[in-house]
């Protein structure tokens, strides 16, 4: 009986020690470094004129709030624009430029632009290390005045080279949005 009692005693002392080790340390918050909150395209018309920005911003990341879309103005018909795109993580301050990571891993990324309507073409102005398109710099040409849509997607680990469609490229979508644009 003595043995049992001492074992029981030891066991319960052990448990109470463990139970008392409650140090209530507050956990550290996690800063999500990879989150993309913001995509911003800047279109500079050749031969001068107003720059146009197209932006999507979702400051709570995967949270419940809906991304906010903003297009600064209408595009001009029959114009060539030089385009650039940036991806930002604005949950950090100052905002982290995710575009740099995309550039560093250019062979694992591609930005896809799929226009319709009055945007007549989009051509890539940059390449990854293997000579395949990357899409951080591009040229956009508008046609006659009218309505247009532009779908923009950043894909991680797509098949490269691909035929320019998302279906062929596969991979994971890190960003996607579609914009209704007026060309006047």
């Amino acid at each position, binding site marked *: 009986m003595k043995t049992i009692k001492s074992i029981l005693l030891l066991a319960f002392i052990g448990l109470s020690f463990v139970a008392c080790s409650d140090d209530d340390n507050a956990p550290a*918050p996690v800063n999500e470094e990879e989150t993309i909150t913001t995509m911003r395209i800047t279109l500079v018309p050749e031969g001068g004129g107003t720059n146009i920005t197209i932006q999507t911003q979702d400051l*709570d990341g*995967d949270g419940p709030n809906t991304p906010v879309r903003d297009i600064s103005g209408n595009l001009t018909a029959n114009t060539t624009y030089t385009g650039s795109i940036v991806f930002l993580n604005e949950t950090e301050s100052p905002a982290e430029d995710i575009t740099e990571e995309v550039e560093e891993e250019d062979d694992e990324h591609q930005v896809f632009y799929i226009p319709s309507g009055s945007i007549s073409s989009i051509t890539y102005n940059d390449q990854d290390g293997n000579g395949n398109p990357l899409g951080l710099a591009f040229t956009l040409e508008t046609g006659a005045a009218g309505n247009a849509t532009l*779908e923009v997607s950043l894909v991680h680990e797509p098949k490269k080279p691909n035929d320019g469609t998302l279906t062929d490229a596969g991979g994971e*979508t890190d960003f*996607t949005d579609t914009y209704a644009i007026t060309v006047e």
Partner: protein
Amino acid sequence: MVFSNKAVIIIAFISFFPIFGNSQQCEYTLSGQVMDYHQKTPLEGATVLILETKMESITTVNGVYTFSNLCSGTYTLEVSHPECSTIMMNVRVDGDTEIEVKLEHHLEELDEVKVVGNIIRDKTNSAQEETLNLNTLENYSAGNLGDALKELGGVSSLNTGANIVKPAIHGLNGSRVLVLNDGVRMQDMEWGAEHAPTLDINSAGSVSVIKGASALQYGGDAIGGVIVAEQARIPRRDSIYGKTILSGVSNGRGGNIVTELTKSYESGWFIKGQGSYKRLGDHEAPDYVLSNTGVQEIAASLQLGKHHFTWGWDARYSYFNTEIAILRASHIGNVDDLIRSINSGEPSIIRPFTYDLQNPRQEVTHHLGKLKFYKRFEGLGKLNVQYDFQSNRRFEYDIRRGERDNIPSIDLELTTHTVSTDFKWDTKDDINILVGLMGRYQDNFANPDTGVRRLIPDYEKIDFGSFLIGEYRVTNQLLLDAGIRYDYNKIDAQKFYRTSRWEERGYDNDFQDLIVEDLDTQLLVNPVLDYHNFSATVGGKYITTNGLQLKLNYALAQRAPNPSELFSDGLHHSAARIELGDLRIENETSHKITTTLEKDFSTWGILLEPYANWVQNFIVLEPTGVEFTVRGSFPVWEYRQTNARLLGVDFSAYSNWTDHWITEHKFSLVKGQDTDTDIALINIPAANWRNSVTFSKPEWNGFEASLESQYVFRQNETPDNIMVFSPQQQEDVVLEINTAPDAYHLLGFRSKMEFPFSNKTKLTTTLAVSNLLNTNYRDYLNRQRFFADDLGRNFTLQLKLNY
């Protein structure tokens, strides 16, 4: 039970002093059949001894024994057989009596070390219960526990590929299924759909499944059931023995090796060491390589102790480490990626075969330490005291940008201490009572260095449990049992919520006082939740005079919500969905009724097991809406509570057509319904029909060959598909997330031969082929069914050396 015969006899005499009745009544006969416990075949040459009268009878070819000229009264029978463990039983003779005796035919150890006593005892009296013996477990030496358990009726699994197999009992899995590993309840983050039990199948001597919550000694929340993995018994004699199993597997181009060695002493001391290593590369479907589906597993255990009949102790440490690569094509970005995967019919990424384990992958390490002490008190019963420690560390690596491939996205460390004690009061002939207490402390640490918001928060949990179970033998034909259990759970969590999520959930109305710190976009919150759970069971077993066995059991079980159901909050990449838990979730309550009808005839037998399970406040995860992020739109899956009903039946039959030919037939069906909405429950296994024919010829080196057919029906009862907005198509589209794949039929083959070298050494060779016809198929309960076909043909060659 391993103990000396002397002790048994003394106990038998003390406990059951024979009652000799009227002197003129000494003309009764006692007869019956001695059968093998597993194969249900008659045992010839078994010795049946009546201790009180020293009368002896040797069984005939048909296993029949007879005693005549007995007086009415209670007798103690000792039944022994050269190949089986000896058992003692009490019988009451009151008129001519027939008693059937089942012996545990544990060929494995008996061949090698002549062990006495390896009775795998039933854990319950009246519940549905089935056991996998060592032979079957060894067939799955290169597989995993979940696959082996599917040999049992009513057991299925929820898979993530071939390496992550979560057992499901009567259609329920995860926290509703308890896993007991050598008396220790596994604390291995069973709440996750892609978390398999961290238990090496090679470390178990037998695995029993109790299909319900009736085994209250293990826990009161087993709404699905309990899986009990036990160690093989170690004989109390001077001996040393071991075995090594080497398996080669064609699909995955790898294999595994298992080795174990046991040393035991007459004095009661023993020590046993065991280790296993498994390595497989990419698996293959019939038409393509399943890229990134390799696995590596390392497990080891050491056990030592001293066992006497009156007291003993043992200590065990086990280590389990697994690294599992997850199908590359199953890691996707948004709904359009998922739609593309579903429509394309083959994985988006197929690379040449490799052994490399790349991202996405998971790595899990489980340490388990246990210390147990028991003591028998003469004229009272047996006391057990146990302490166990578990540490479960889980890393999940995702496809990440930047230099983050070696930083896990999930890094959780779950530490558990448990102290338990129980006392079995078993001195009365007809009543057994078991009482027990349990205390548990658990700590979960979610490492913030992942750079990804925590899926499961830091928490501390305290559990307390107590139970009382009784068994009452009314007559030799009727046994009744009943039990009650109370459990208290308290969970103290520290979780960061996005402020936007906190408000969207409505927590700012209900739980604003829980906020500890406001970090502007994030809130640190300290929910402290407690739950009281009551469970109970009552049942009976009745054996009619012609051998029909009837069991009826009712079990009430209550389960507190798990951390995933309470705290989930984020995007799940493999499922392209946002999963949301709810702090308001209460415990769920199950009422389950099971019945068993079993009858063995001379050459055949049947088993029919219908059941019904009504669950109040059943916690389901189901799609409720859509949220938009910069990655596109995602369906939102929320945990909510409803009422559910599960109805099912398991049927099995066997027939010995000749001495050499046996056929076995099994059918399982379960139907799950949300009774509030009248919609089918998700992830309920489809009906399953298995038939096998086995030819055995022991004189040809123990030759055995069997062919098995498995037909899995299509699951026609699923929840509806959901509509989501496709950014690419700019319109709402149907996401066929709930459409079940077609029915399929698989053939399997297995053959075995044994080559004894000496009386101590034996080589057993096994050749098995699964998916013999290389059939293309997908299974409803495989989470990777959206992305790729299931496994193609696989050859397994196994060499086992016992020494």
